[in-house]
Each structure stands twice: as structure tokens, then as C-alpha cells.
């Protein structure tokens, strides 16, 4: 079936357009990279594969950039469609796979680079954040290909990988994923990118502090008159590997909770259409979470409470064009509530807050693993070193992964924002979502400045205001 240049269904085009645009904003594509495909029933009820055309600008698709192919026979549309069409078609023949997507997830690609000679056999990527760990698995396969673009070798290996994993990495190139919807594939890719970013931040943090840490003379070293240790060799980071293996062995000790599985069945649900202003607030805050990278696509959650109900966005980070479900749910806990929703309800039951946002701010997640030189345990508070941050907050608590609910609620009451190591950032508002949103947004900046100071070899302890240390 040939490409139907001018008869693209409006809804399917909007979907591709919005996901394409969002993927560009997420920086997981370059101007022309990547491709998206999905199974779709056309107006005649015939199942086709819709796929982006080769060379199209995914961030700014036109109706003519969508190709409609037969899923069972090769037609001329194949030659106009993506160079990775064969791979997509095979992926879409996997049970349950309705959509597939390929993107240049640079952060993950950078985190998996090595300097081994080809042909390479790279190890799987082990995420250290809960989103990727639970949604993509504790080991994400990485494959090296001699021809890493549209090759028969890839068409063979990648669908096989995706039988057992939602996402697989093409060494030095990008990632490929499958999902029940196109949004789910985008979700997977954003998590992958985020996971790579966090690992890289932690690695940089460890490298920068290691020099200082190992130069410190511990009493033991002094006693034995041992020399200070050398900086890390290039390409190795034993502390990171140690963290990864511990997380793999006992994830429940390192992550706050296992996030609920991605739910594609509630995609366009809105339970409170009459509350136009609140819908607008959700969409504004959700778009900001997404565009400012305060939480990867469709992760985190936010809520506004009423007296008996709460309005709940279980996929908080949402670009305007794509949206996300907005639910009206009873405030009282119910069987079937997931951990995150229950936590919203519990916090409301124990406080006067009107709004809550839970976001996975990558910089905060990475920074929460910082161990100051000379110390054994990760930080328990983030002390802003920038002018605005230090006046706005003085300190922001970092709570352990197994924090008790009451302690989280107390921290929110006192600070309005708290980081849970391995569990994202919780922020509360007395009145509005916008008020709650301000916290993760400020926190990201605060962490960026601190991370930059660490990378530049500055002594954070000296930079932290004395008054905050005593707080």
C-alpha cells in the first residue's frame, strides 16, 4: 500500500506530530533522526502500519511525512518509509507491540560508550534510578553492530532483544523500543535518556570528589603511613559499579517504591471537564515539568485536593500537545490504589496542603547520592550555594529511600519540598499547583549549581552558608 499523501487521518497525524515534537524538545532526536511506527486501523477497518518517512523532520512533521504500509506484504511505501522499516515491522509483529520507536538517546549512548576495540561486546546498562530500573528493567541490553543503521543484523537482533526487554540500546547510535501505544514508546525512550543522564551525573560527581576524598588522610592511612590514592583511571568508576551491584541485589533498599506500570488504557481520560481552570493549571504545570525536564515524559504525579475527592494526574509530566489522563478519585484510600496515589492521599490526610507534585528531577536524584570527601554516607540535606536558592530554602532535606511516611510529611510541612534518595522529589502547595511546581523547578537549579561546583573541584562545604549548616 502506497503512502497516502493527502489523506492522513487527522488524529493519527496529531499523535505523530505531537510525539515527534516532544521528542525533539526532550533532546532525544536531532532534526531528522529517529522514527516512529504503529499499527493502526484505517477508516475502512483495515490494519496498516503507520511509519514516519525517511528524512522527515520528526520535530515538525507534515501529513505527507507519514507512510501507511501493509503489515503483511512489501509495497512501494517501504521505500519511502524509514530506513529502519524492516526492524519496525518485525517489532510490531511481537505479541502486544502496537508501536515502536527509535531515537538518539544521547545521554544513554554517552553513558554506554567504551574504548574497547571492535567488535565490541558491551555489558548491559544498569540504571540507578527507580524509573528506568523498574520500567525498563535492571539490565538494559546494549548491542554493537558493524552497520548500526537499518542493517539486516539489526533487524535480526533488535526484535529478539525486545521480546524480553521493553527497550534496547544500539551501541553508539541510540535506542529502539516497543510499546502498547506510541506514547508508551516515547515514555520508554525518555526514561532511557534520563537514566543515562543520571548515571553520567553520578559518575562525574564521584570522579570530581574522589580526588579530594582519596587525598584525605584517614586515621587508618596515617597509622600505616599509606600514600593517598590516585584519581580514578579513565573509564572506570568502582563506586558507581558498587552502587549498581548493590541496587541490583536489593533494589527495595535503594528505591522509595516501585512505580506503577505505565497505563495506556487511561490515555485521554478527563474526569472533571467542568473545572476548566483546574484543567488548565494541570496542563500548565505538566507542560513545565516536561519542557524544563523536571520529570521525564509521563512520570511523576500531581494532585489538587478537594474535600472528598482529589484531582489526580498520574502521568504528571505532559507536553501541551500530548496531554495525559486527569482523574477524579476519592480521597479515602481504596483497594487497587498504587503506592504513589496512596502517598498523595496519606499526605493530604495528615496535612492541610491543597496541592502536591511528585517529580523525578534527575539532577536532584543524582545529587542525593553525593558523599562529601571524608564522609561515609550520602548527604542528608541539600544546602543551596546560589544566592536565590539559599534565601528561598536555606536547606532542603534529603530523606533515605526507606523514609517513613510521617517523616516525609513532616519534612514537607517544614520545607514544602523534600528529596527522597531513589524516590524523586515531593513538593507541596498550600493553595495552587503553581506554588508546588516552583519547588522542583528551583531545586533543579540549586542542584545544577552544586553539581557544577563539584565538577569544578570547588569545596562545597566552604560555599555553604554557615547559617544553613546549623539549620
Amino acid at each position, binding site marked *: 500500500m502506497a503512502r497516502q499523501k493527502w489523506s492522513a487521518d487527522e488524529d493519527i497525524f496529531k499523535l505523530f506530530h505531537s510525539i515527534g515534537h516532544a521528542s525533539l524538545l526532550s533532546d532525544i532526536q536531532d532534526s531528522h533522526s529517529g522514527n516512529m511506527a504503529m499499527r493502526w486501523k484505517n477508516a475502512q477497518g483495515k490494519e496498516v502500519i503507520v511509519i514516519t518517512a525517511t528524512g522527515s523532520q520528526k520535530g515538525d512533521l507534515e501529513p505527507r511525512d507519514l507512510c501507511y504500509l501493509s503489515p503483511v506484504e512489501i509495497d512501494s511505501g517501504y521505500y519511502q518509509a524509514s530506513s529502519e522499516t524492516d526492524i519496525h515491522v518485525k517489532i510490531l509483529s511481537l505479541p502486544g507491540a502496537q508501536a515502536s520507536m527509535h531515537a538518539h538517546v544521547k545521554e544513554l549512548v554517552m553513558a554506554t560508550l567504551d574504548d574497547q576495540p571492535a567488535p565490541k561486546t558491551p555489558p548491559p546498562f544498569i540504571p540507578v534510578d527507580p524509573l528506568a530500573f523498574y520500567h525498563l528493567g535492571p539490565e538494559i541490553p546494549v548491542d554493537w553492530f558493524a552497520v548500526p543503521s537499518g542493517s539486516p543484523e539489526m533487524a535480526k537482533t533488535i526484535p529478539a532483544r525486545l521480546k524480553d526487554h521493553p527497550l534496547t540500546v544500539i551501541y553508539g547510535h541510540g535506542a529502539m523500543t516497543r510499546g502498547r501505544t506510541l506514547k508508551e514508546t516515547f515514555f520508554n525512550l525518555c526514561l532511557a535518556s534520563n537514566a543515562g543522564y543520571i548515571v553520567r551525573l553520578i559518575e562525574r560527581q564521584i570522579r570530581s570528589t574522589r580526588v579530594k576524598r582519596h587525598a584525605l588522610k584517614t586515621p587508618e592511612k596515617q597509622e600505616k603511613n599509606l600514600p593517598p590514592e590516585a584519581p580514578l583511571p579513565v573509564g572506570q568508576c568502582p563506586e558507581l559499579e558498587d552502587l549498581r551491584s548493590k541496587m541490583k541485589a536489593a533494589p527495595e533498599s535503594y528505591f522509595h517504591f516501585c512505580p506503577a506500570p505505565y497505563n495506556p488504557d487511561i490515555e485521554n481520560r478527563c474526569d472533571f471537564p467542568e473545572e476548566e481552570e483546574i484543567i488548565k493549571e494541570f496542563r500548565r504545570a505538566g507542560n513545565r515539568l516536561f519542557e524544563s525536564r523536571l520529570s521525564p515524559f509521563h512520570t511523576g504525579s500531581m494532585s489538587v485536593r478537594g474535600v472528598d475527592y482529589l484531582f489526580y494526574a498520574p502521568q504528571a509530566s505532559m507536553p501541551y500537545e500530548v496531554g495525559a489522563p486527569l482523574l477524579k478519585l476519592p480521597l479515602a484510600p481504596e483497594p487497587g490504589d498504587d503506592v504513589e496515589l496512596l502517598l498523595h492521599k496519606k499526605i493530604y490526610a495528615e*496535612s492541610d496542603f491543597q496541592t502536591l507534585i511528585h517529580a523525578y528531577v534527575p539532577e536532584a536524584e543524582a545529587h542525593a547520592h553525593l558523599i562529601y570527601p571524608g564522609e561515609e554516607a550520602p548527604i542528608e540535606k541539600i544546602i543551596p550555594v546560589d544566592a536565590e536558592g539559599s*534565601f528561598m530554602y536555606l536547606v532542603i532535606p534529603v530523606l533515605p529511600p526507606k523514609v517513613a511516611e510521617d517523616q516525609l510529611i513532616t519534612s514537607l510541612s*517544614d520545607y514544602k519540598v523534600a528529596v527522597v534518595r531513589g524516590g524523586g522529589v515531593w513538593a507541596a502547595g*498550600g493553595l495552587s499547583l503553581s506554588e508546588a511546581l516552583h519547588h522542583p523547578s528551583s531545586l533543579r537549579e540549586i542542584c545544577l549549581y552544586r553539581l557544577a561546583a563539584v565538577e569544578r573541584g570547588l569545596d562545597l562545604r566552604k560555599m555553604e552558608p554557615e547559617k544553613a549548616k*546549623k539549620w
Partner: protein
Amino acid sequence: MAIPGYHGRVLDIDLSTGNIKSGALTPEDILLYLGGRGLATKLFFDRMEPAADPLGPDNVIIIASSPLVGSQAPTAIWGYMVFKSPLTGYLGGCNLGGNWGRAFKASGYDAIIINGCARQPVFIDLSPEKIEIRHASHLRGKNISESINLLTSQSPGSRPCQALVIGPAGENLVKYATVASDKYSLYNRGGSGAVFGSKNLKGIRVCGEEKIRISDKARYQASLDQANYLLKQSPITRRLMRELGTAGFVLLARHLNMLPHRNFLDAEPDVEKVKAISGEAIARCYLEKADSCYECPIACLRQTAIKTNDACLRCGQGPEYETVAMMGSACDIYDLDCIIRASYLAGELGLDAVSFGGTVACAMELAEKGYLTSGQSGDLELKFGRSELLEKLVELTAYRRGSGHLLAEGSYRLASACGHPELAMQVKKLEIPGYDPRASYAQALGYMTSPTGACHRRGGYAASLSLLGGNKGIPRFSLFQSPITIRNLQNTGIIQDSLGVCYVTGFAFGVEPWSRIVSSITGYDFSAARLEEIANRVASLERLFNLQAGLNPEEEGLLPSRFAEIPIMSEGKPRAISRENMLQMCRDYYRARGWNGNGRPGDSYLKAMKVEPKKAES
């Protein structure tokens, strides 16, 4: 030794017997009620017979200070007064800035309790050496500034002192008379001046130099730095308030269709006319300088001047937003000169400009509709827009002359006397201030559930969030969100009133910096959650008093039917609040408060709040 931030002393004065007692403030009252509004409400609740006549000797006046007053905390100069309101018949409560609150704290007391009734005009003289009830016949009939000048210029030992007084309106028991200090800082709403007047109490003079202790100076300084930084950072507290004062809200309110027009018949006064009474117009034509309460860095007060008939300059303070809205657009008056003159005079004679403006607007509508007889109007041809009558009406009201006698009773009694109570724009007989409730459902609910009647400050200042909420901007037309929003805003107000700080700081920050400051001063952990708990407790106690004073939640002050029947246009849609929606919001609000669906705090809730049911139910 008293808890730092407090003196630990309460003064109890019986004007009937002349007895003066100094008692100890219990740590329990401090920890459960904090100070200011919370403490005053507790002391009031324990002493006041709810059914007592508000203008009889059994009404109790409590003025309480707060742990932050006397510190360097920004704006921490406010004092709070509680009494039974002669206008509403329920709890009366208001606060006062200026210099008096600080001076009162320096007298060495945390609160003063006044009951009974003097046989002749008196004032209370509070100095380190002596506390006396002294004759005040020489002050009778004197206006506010004269009375203050006389009291402060004759202080014992010529020491600097401050005075709190009533004007002729209070002496004449005008139901919305004020008590004032610093010439124009007022305990303005609910008729505190009439309660003073009914007790023959012309005023209170204080002098003293007692200081408070600070428990943790380093932490105190760090938290002060934070609060001051945040005040400087917010464009509202840094600039808008200083440059335009609260009247800077006038045009903003008009643009949001929130500014009352013609007794709330609509909210769309002509924009060009509104410009003539805006904060910008005041700054351009009348402002002498921005003024402030004691050492306040925000300086929202206006020192203005108008030309008198003999071309001299007459100086005064204001007008504030409320005055402009209620004496201005609510009466369809756009002559700023007239509004300022009337506002100066209302200040001098001791009238609440909001209730006065609301009552005049009501009278104008009654007159235009032919419901106000010429006998009742004293042959004044009342009509919307008659600016030249304003000053005259202030005088008639304060002295209860001619039509002023009816105006002095407030809009509800006036409209009832004319057979049309529905034309009084009030809740619990307190006039609705200058924010149309149809333009903010949360504000509407705030008016309905405020313990003191339609007061935006006690009811939760939701309108301010529509005007300048910044990241606290809330949906204006959400039935879902409004009950929790208004509970939280009311709680913030209770916390500010109990800490003795200005509501204007709320434009820059919420409760957390205050929590740090009060904890560092007292040495006790007043976390934000604990402050919220105190606010919930105070709200419940206020509610209990009103219920015991006869409030029937079933008929509790809903908004007048006008707000259900006549929509205003806002954001492209007609907006009204049906009676059903009003009731629904009230019911949701009760439950948000943890009260029963019928608006009564239940026994178990009171127990959890540590409100003693015995005292509460007695």
C-alpha cells in the same frame, strides 16, 4: 520566667468596679493559642457570656499582643482585638498596625481584658509605675487626632507614649465605629468603637520600655534575613505597595470585573472613571509620601494632602483600596477629592469606611428605588453618584443626626427598616468589602464563613490571589477547590493575626519563614504544621462562640440573593453563585475544617484540638 517573646502577664480591668488585676499568662495558652488573635479569642471565650448584650457592661474586650511584636521581625507590630460585635451580634475581631501594638507590648503585658462599664468617660493609663482608670470628660466629643494629641502630650513624665481612642462615632454608638491609634491606624471592622463607647471608655494610653527576650539569636537572625530577603524580592512588597499603596489594586480589580459598582449591581464601572480614583491617580495628584507602620519596610500607607477651600493643604492618610471601592465605585462616585475628604473625616470621627461606604451605597439604591422615604433620608436626595453628599453623610452618621441615625445602624438594619433587607450587601450584617464575590468563588465562600461576617481579612483574602497571587494564583471559579483554599487562607490569616504580622507579607511568603522566626524567638518548636494546628483550633473556638451566640448554620450568612440572580461577566462568561452552590461550598468547607456537616465542631474534634468541651459547651 516567661517564655521568650512574652512577658507572661495579662491585665484584667473591670470598669464597673475599678478593679485592676495583673495575672499570669499560662504556658498552655501560649502553646495552644500563640498570641494576638489566638490568645485574644481564648481569653475572650473563657470569659464572655455569648448571649450578653454587645453594648452592655458584660461585653468583654480583649486586646492581645504576639511573641513577634517587640522583635525586629518585619511588620511585627500588630495588635488584635476581640469583642462581641454590636453590628453582627457575633464575634468581633480586627487588628491594628501603626505604632500602638508595639507600644502596648513595651508596657509589659501580653494582653488586656476589659469588662464592665464606667459611670463617666474614662481612659486607661498604663505606665511602668502605675495602672489607672482616669477621667476623660475633657476628651468627650473630641475627634481622633485631638484625643490622641491630648493624651500623648500630657503623658506622665513627658515620656513618649501611644494612645488608642474612639471618636464621636464610638461615643454615639455607631454600630461600625472604630478604635484608632496613630491618628489613622484603626481597629476598623465590627464596631469595636461602639463597644468602647458603651463602656464609657474613651481610650487607652500606654508607655513603657519592656523588651522581650530572644531564645536563639543566631537562628533568629538567619530567619529574619530570609524574611527580609523575600520581602525585597517580591515586586509587590518591594515596589507596588510603596508606590501605589493598596489603592494600586483599584484598576487591577476593575480589569478582573471585581470592583463593586452601584451597590454590587454589577462589576463594570466605566474604566476611564475608575482611572480617576485609582492608586495611580492618588500617587499623581495627592500623595505627599509613602508612609509606614512602625519600621515596616513595605510602607504601603499613603500620606496625602488635599487643598482646602482657603487654598491651604490639609494632610491625612489614605485612602486605602477599600475606601476607594466602597465610597467610590460602589456608590458610583469618581470624584477623588470628595472621597479623600470623606475618608479623612471618617478617620477623624471614627467610622469604618467599608461599612460606611456599603451602607451609603445601599441607601442610594433604596432611595433610587423609592424604598427610602424622605423622612428616613432626612430630605437629602440620595442618589448614586452624588459625591458632594459623602462628607456630609459621614458627619451625620458619626453624630447620628438626621438620616445619619439610620445609616449608623449599618446596611442590613437600614434596608430592613425600608422593607428590603435583600438590598443590603452584607453577610452576618457586616458589609461586603470591595471585592465582588461573583468574581472569586473562594472569596464568596470566605465572606460566608468568616467568623466576623463579610470580611476579606478574617474570611480569607482570596481576592488578593486573583489580583496578585503570582505562583499562588488560584482558580477563580472552582467549586471543587474553593473550600480547601479558603480554609487554608483563613488559617494563614489566623497565623498572621496571632503572630502580630501584616497580611501584606503574604504577597511575598507564606507561613514557613514565620515558623522559623517564632521558633527562634520562643525556643519552642512552632513548626508550620503546628501553626496550622493552632489556626484550626482558633477557628473552631471562634465558631463555637458564634454558635453559642445564636448562629444557626442552616441560615448562616449566605450571600444576598443578588449574587445568585444577577450574573456579572468575567473571563467571557456570566458568573453568579446559585444558592445551591453557596450551600454546597459551605457544607464542603465545614467538612474541610473537620466540623460536622451542619457546621458544628464535634466533641471528638474538639478533644483532638484540645479545646476543652466543658468550657466550650458551658
